């Protein structure tokens, strides 16, 4: 049952990737990058042999290097005969199962802006998709910028040959302005016929550190409501978690007294309240992917 697939460098490169998951949102700052990071970490720990890649296509605002604790001059991408070598976030624990690629690795110094118009972004994305030496991957998580514009259209265009393996997760926060953008994002997935694995409501409620009461910093429930109305799978809600902000701000760097079986980001992340909840969401994502 082989269908005719366009043979492009992207198609060839992504041949060795089983599942590609786009993390989308419409609105900025709702937690796409943090959800992408968490999804990658959870997929990574879902099996001792799982190989996960994370591609950051937020070209003008890359957060992934920071969140994975790999943002410094020592983390640069190297060219090899078979393509760009990604940075391995788990190198610390002697493994190479968590590969990271971001435009952040190409910048000379922190704080440099990437001021690119559409065509330049399109070219960079094509290159990211075709030239990175991921090797065999079980999952490739793609973190996207806000909106539904050049980056998103380019991704869909260049991945045309591997579309049967591409799906999306939509992230929103509970406020009306975010939900509105999440709806736009859903319309986008419908227009481009991108299957949606489910919706995550992030920053839903805040558990007070002093009394443990849940107060609604940004209200709550809107995401679940939207999922029901639109016939989407609701993957769950994540509360506002100040510890998570800390872990992601530092990429797990800092003192780590644990025995070194895991890299520090993973062991720090596991201790957050959010990690517990995210485990369940990851199961939801995996079951949506089928085999």
């Amino acid at each position: 049952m082989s269908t005719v697939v366009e043979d492009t460098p992207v198609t060839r490169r992504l041949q060795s990737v089983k599942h590609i998951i786009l993390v989308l949102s419409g609105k900025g700052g709702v937690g796409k990058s943090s959800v992408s990071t968490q999804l990658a970490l959870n997929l990574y720990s879902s099996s001792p042999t799982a190989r996960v890649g994370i591609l950051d296509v937020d070209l003008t605002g890359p957060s992934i290097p920071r969140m994975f604790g790999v943002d410094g001059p020592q983390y640069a991408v190297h060219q090899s005969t078979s393509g760009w070598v990604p940075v391995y976030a788990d190198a610390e624990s002697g493994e190479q199962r968590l590969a990271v690629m971001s435009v952040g690795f190409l910048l000379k110094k922190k704080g440099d802006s990437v001021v690119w118009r559409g065509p330049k972004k399109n070219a960079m994305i094509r290159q990211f998709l075709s030239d990175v030496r991921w090797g065999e991957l079980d999952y490739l998580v793609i973190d996207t910028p806000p909106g539904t514009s050049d980056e998103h259209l380019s991704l869909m265009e260049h991945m045309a040959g591997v579309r049967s393996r591409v799906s999306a997760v939509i992230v929103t926060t509970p406020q009306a302005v975010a939900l509105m953008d999440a709806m736009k994002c859903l319309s986008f997935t419908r227009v481009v016929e991108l299957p949606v694995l489910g919706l995550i409501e992030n920053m839903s409620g805040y558990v007070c550190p002093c009394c443990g009461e849940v107060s609604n910093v940004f209200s709550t429930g809107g995401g679940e409501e939207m999922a029901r109305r639109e016939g989407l799978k609701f993957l769950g809600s994540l509360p506002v978690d100040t510890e998570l902000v800390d872990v992601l701000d530092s990429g797990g760097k800092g003192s780590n007294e644990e025995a070194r079986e895991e890299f520090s980001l993973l062991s720090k992340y596991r201790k957050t309240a959010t990690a517990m909840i995210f485990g369940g969401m990851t199961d939801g994502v995996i079951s949506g992917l089928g085999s």
Partner: protein
Amino acid sequence: MIAVQAPPNIPNSLSVPANAPEHCPGTDSDLAGKTDACAGCANQDICASGATKLPDPSLPLIRERMSNVKRKILVLSGKGGVGKSTFTAQLGWAFAVDEDIQTGIMDVDICGPSIPTIFGIASEQVHSSSSGWSPVYVQDNLGVMSVGFMLPTSKDAVMWRGPKKNGLISQFFKDVDWGDLDYLIVDTPPGTSDEHLSIVQYLKESGIDGAVLITTPQEVALQDVRREIDFCKKVGIRIIGLVENMSGFVCPNCKTESQIFKPSTGGGRRLAEETGIEFLGAVPLDPRIGKSADYGVSFLDEYPDSPATTAYLDIIDRIKDILGD
């Protein structure tokens, strides 16, 4: 394949048309229309003729419109969701308290326009007349223009690439009949891309009075603000100052303050010191700000006693001072 360690070099993003191929040398370059990249480019004839070293034809029209606007202020952030649109709206409402001041708000966040919702005018439409598109008025002295007014429904995605967005922005500057304005506040999308370059390009002649940068306290947001500062320096936009939003959460029940987004690297204040820009102030997180925005009412009017209101008003006074108003 490009060099791996350095990002591919673009000569001058301001002069690379949105429809140009990847290696366009820039239309104002001596090589315009003559490089390998130019072969097959739709602009080749024009570029080779030298005409592109002359200014864009819409520029005189924009200059004409903008000559009626006293102050043009951009609200920028780099990161999304930090509160640019919310701040823009408070600025608009605060200016409009004075009946003699005319304010216009231009929302150039084309893929995610929140301004109509925040002002409670999401169901309005734009009307056009012989003098141009008329803005939607929140009150007599506060007009708004947004792509949100032009979509059939709010659910529709605006799946536009750069050139189309740039076209609309050019129209926003040249075709909107603002009348005489004391302030034009431009709300922007996150990032440093087409929209931002276009604003700079279209306002080059009329001038931008300055940009207010918004951030939240955590490092992930500050990183993007550093990039935005770099952008402003590159294109020559004056930075009025930096506002830190969502700094600290005051519980409505017991008034205890906690840090939801911890300033793990010193927050906006430290960043402002390091980069030599003014720190305009910090606005605490107040859940009622989100609610007011969702219902389209003015937070400043509804909750005059909130510490966030005081913070907003102090910042706005300081902005006026800096501008000399």
